[in-house]
């Protein structure tokens, strides 16, 4: 009898030990009521800047990080935020990168300037094309932005492509001009990222 009890206890312990990591993963993925935390695994942000005289250039970076909680209730904004390191933006011309970062984005003024953040992200649905709303913190200013997103489940995570227009003047950024040619006031931000359930409750950066 005593032997049977000991065997049962070992079995329970073994099963418990086996299930423990899975329980941990589930807790990581659902820290808040009904929310799955998704972390940015890879991504690229590009800003399409049309020139006043025609043509355009793109400022790009892969320094996109952050995690968001995918709430089952679409009426609530997603928990968490996405951050872009503006100091890594590249346009294809070194001197222009320097002007963009220092003169216009003023990244040396502190974290509020060196990073752009998207918070309170709200989407109508978690699959397919959908409108989205978010709050963009850029150049020390906070404004609501609206755009479209295309969300596709991929593996145990999601692939997201989103774009939204931004008016440079609304964020207090000096009018970008160089030797008589300027960037139009409205630029378009495109976000292309893959997100997967966060393995741990950290906000690591993915470059």
């Amino acid at each position, binding site marked *: 009898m005593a032997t049977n009890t000991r065997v049962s206890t070992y079995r329970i312990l073994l099963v418990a030990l086996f299930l423990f990591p899975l329980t941990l993963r589930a807790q990581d993925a659902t820290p808040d009521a009904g929310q799955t935390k998704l972390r940015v695994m890879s991504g690229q942000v590009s800003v*399409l800047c*049309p*020139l006043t*005289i*025609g*043509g*355009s*250039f*793109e400022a790009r970076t892969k320094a996109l990080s952050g995690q968001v909680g995918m709430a089952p209730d679409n009426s609530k904004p997603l928990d968490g935020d996405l951050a872009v390191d503006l100091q890594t933006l590249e*346009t*294809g*011309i*070194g*001197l*222009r990168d320097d002007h963009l970062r220092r003169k216009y984005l003023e990244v040396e003024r502190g974290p509020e300037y060196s990073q752009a953040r998207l918070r309170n992200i709200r989407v109508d649905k978690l699959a397919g094309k959908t409108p989205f709303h978010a709050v963009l913190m850029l150049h020390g200013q906070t404004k609501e932005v609206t755009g479209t997103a295309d969300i596709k489940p991929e593996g145990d995570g999601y692939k997201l492509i989103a774009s939204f227009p931004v008016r440079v003047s609304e964020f207090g950024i000096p009018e970008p*001009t*160089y*030797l*008589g*040619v*300027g960037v139009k006031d409205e630029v378009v931000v495109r976000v292309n990222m893959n997100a997967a359930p966060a393995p741990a409750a950290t906000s690591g950066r993915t470059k």
Partner: protein
Amino acid sequence: MHCKFSCRLFIVVLLVLAARHADAYPNMIRLGYTSCATCHVSPQGGGVLTRYGRGIDYAQTIRAGEPPDAEVPSDALSRFLYDVRLQMSVDHPQGGAEEYSFNTNFRTAVAVNAQNRVVYAFGVRSPALSLNRRMGAASLGMSRLYWMYEPKEGLAVVVGRDDLPSGLGLPGANSFYRSVNNPNVSSTPTQAKVFWWNKRWQVATYAYGPDGNETQPQFEARGAGAMGGMNVWRDHAVVGLTTRVSKADAFDRRNAGVFARVGFNEHLGVLAEHDVTGRELSTGQRLTHVAGHAEVFFVPFNWLQTALAAEHMNTVGGATTYRLSPSAEVRLTPNFRLQFSTRSVYADTDSRTYSIQLQVKAE
């Protein structure tokens, strides 16, 4: 023997004509520049740079920096834009002696006011010197003189002497086959043209007449043409059509073509222009030529521009000529550029020429 010399001479002339203009960079499509008008005074490209164009030019060298007038207010009118270029070239034809040439070009654009400019260019070309003989004589020529009126942004009217508009805006691209499908005429005829461009479209229409540089009076051509391009892929691809008709005492000529400028990313892209030309000579002979230029460019760094160009010139029922030209340009500073190229011509007589060119520019 005499024929051999004539063939060589013909090839040398062809190669000199085909030497790439180092100042036209349609490969800027890789960075989203769909139109030449962003950087050049002339909307069709080439020639004097605008202040912005000069800034971009300065930024794409090993020693990148600000141009001298970077502190001048952005909206200030540049009354006098100019550059002087000295080009020293060494060409080594396969099996032949090295040939040295030295050219000086002065180009200027004078702004009468914000809407009106006068553009002028002339060059002094030295004879090609070789170790065992001296060819030709120094020549001085005015290549461009025109008035340009821009009533509003995206619209320009040009009257005077200039290159005719082309799809790629790369003069060297079609000079390879121009000597076959459009011989004896001037490359910079007197013309009137209208450019219209916006975010989506680029259109040029023109009419032209002789300028006195034709080899014989019967080649003094008059004609008209149009070029239209469309921005089809996020400011990284322009495709379009060209057409031209011309008439002289010696011939009637009709030409139609397609072109594409594509930048796959900031390093890699393709430039291509192909056309079909029908010529009816006064002798009654009818000729049809199919010609083209295709080029893959790779720009690993802004200061190092490489390209592999392939060109062909086929005359239906007649001769066929191909040329393969790998090239590399190193932009040392805003004032110094070094270009290396090889030009292999495959025709009745194959030839290969190695070329090094140093360009010194002041502006």
